[in-house]
C-alpha cells in the first residue's frame, strides 16, 4: 500500500486557503447585507423633493456622532433631524429655510459646508492666503535660480571652446 506523503507546507497552504474562503463568505454576506440595509428609508412623493431631501441630509452634520451626516447616522437625534427636514420640505420650505432652522438651533457646526460669516471667514480664506504665500515663495526661488544661470554657464561654454 502506497501512502502519498503530502509535504507539510502544502498542507499548511491548503489550510490557509480554506481559512481564507471561510473568512470571505461571512465578509461577503456582511457587505451584501450592508448594501441592502439602509439607515434612512424615507421616500418623498416627488422625485425633485426626494433629491433635495437627500442633498440636505448629506449636508447636515449629525450633532451627536460628529463626523457623520444625518443621512448616514443611526443615532436617534439624526433620525429626528431627518424627520424635521422631511416635514419642512413637504411643507414647501426652501433649502435655505431648512439650513437656517438648523443653524439657529445647533450653530455653524451643523453645516458640513459652512456659510461665509465673520466667524467662519477664516475657514474660507486660509487656503487662498496659503496659496498666495506659496506662490510668492515659489516666485522668489525661481527668480533666484534664473539669476544664477548665466554666471554658471559662462565658464562652461569656455571649457567647451578650448
Amino acid at each position, binding site marked *: 500500500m502506497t501512502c502519498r506523503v503530502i509535504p507539510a507546507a502544502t498542507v499548511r497552504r491548503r489550510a490557509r486557503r480554506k481559512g481564507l474562503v471561510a473568512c470571505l463568505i461571512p465578509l461577503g454576506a456582511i457587505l451584501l447585507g450592508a448594501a441592502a440595509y439602509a439607515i434612512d428609508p424615507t421616500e418623498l412623493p416627488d422625485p425633485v423633493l426626494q433629491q433635495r431631501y437627500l442633498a440636505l441630509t448629506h449636508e447636515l452634520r449629525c450633532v451627536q456622532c460628529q463626523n457623520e451626516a444625518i443621512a448616514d447616522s443611526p443615532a436617534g437625534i439624526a433620525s*429626528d433631524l431627518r424627520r424635521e427636514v422631511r416635514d419642512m420640505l413637504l411643507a414647501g420650505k426652501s433649502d435655505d429655510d431648512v439650513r437656517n432652522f438648523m443653524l439657529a*438651533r*445647533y*450653530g455653524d457646526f451643523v453645516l458640513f459646508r459652512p456659510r461665509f460669516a465673520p466667524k467662519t471667514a477664516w475657514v474660507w480664506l486660509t487656503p487662498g492666503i496659503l496659496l498666495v504665500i506659496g506662490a510668492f515663495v515659489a516666485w522668489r526661488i525661481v527668480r533666484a535660480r534664473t539669476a544664477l544661470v548665466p554666471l554658471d554657464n559662462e565658464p562652461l561654454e569656455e571649457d567647451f571652446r578650448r
Partner: protein
Amino acid sequence: MNRFALPIALFALLVVVLAIGIKHSPEKGIIASPLIGKPAPQFSLPSLTDGARTVSTTSLRGRWYLLNVWGSWCGTCREEHNMLLEVRQSGIVPLIGLDWKDDDAQALSWLQQLGNPYEVVAVDREGRTAIDWGVYAAPESFLVNPQGIVVYKCMGELTHEIWEREILPRLPKQQTAKS
C-alpha cells in the same frame, strides 16, 4: 533677509495654531449653543405627573429656572440625579424637567425610585421641543433668567464644580442667599 527667517516664522505660526488646537481639545466634542443670550424657545407640553396640566414657557416667565433635559433611558442622567436632588434641596433655583423621548411609565417609576428633583416635568415624546432647544445628547441643562433669556447651557452631567463655577455666579445675590 536671512534665509531662515521665513521657515522659522512659518514654524512659529504652526506652533501657535497647534497650541490653540490642543488647548481647546477637551471641549472639541461640545458644540457651543447659539441659544446663549437669546430668548428661550417656547413650548407648551403636557405635564408628566398630571396629564391634564400643561407646562409652558410663558408660565415660567418672571423667575429664574434650570431646564434639565433627561430620559429614563439615559445613563448619565442617573449619575447626575443626586446632584439634581441637592439643587432641589437648596431651593436656589427651580428645576424644570424636560423628559425627552421617553416612556411615561418608565419616567414616573424613575422619579418614584430615585426621588423627584423637579418642580414640574414637561413631556417631549416626539423630541421636537428638544430640537428647538438644540439638544443633541442628554443630559443637558439650560439656565434661563426671568426675562426668558437663556444665560448658560451645561452639556452633559451637571457636577458640583459646574454648579459652583458656572451656575451660582450667574444668579443674583438675593437668589443664592436663599440657602
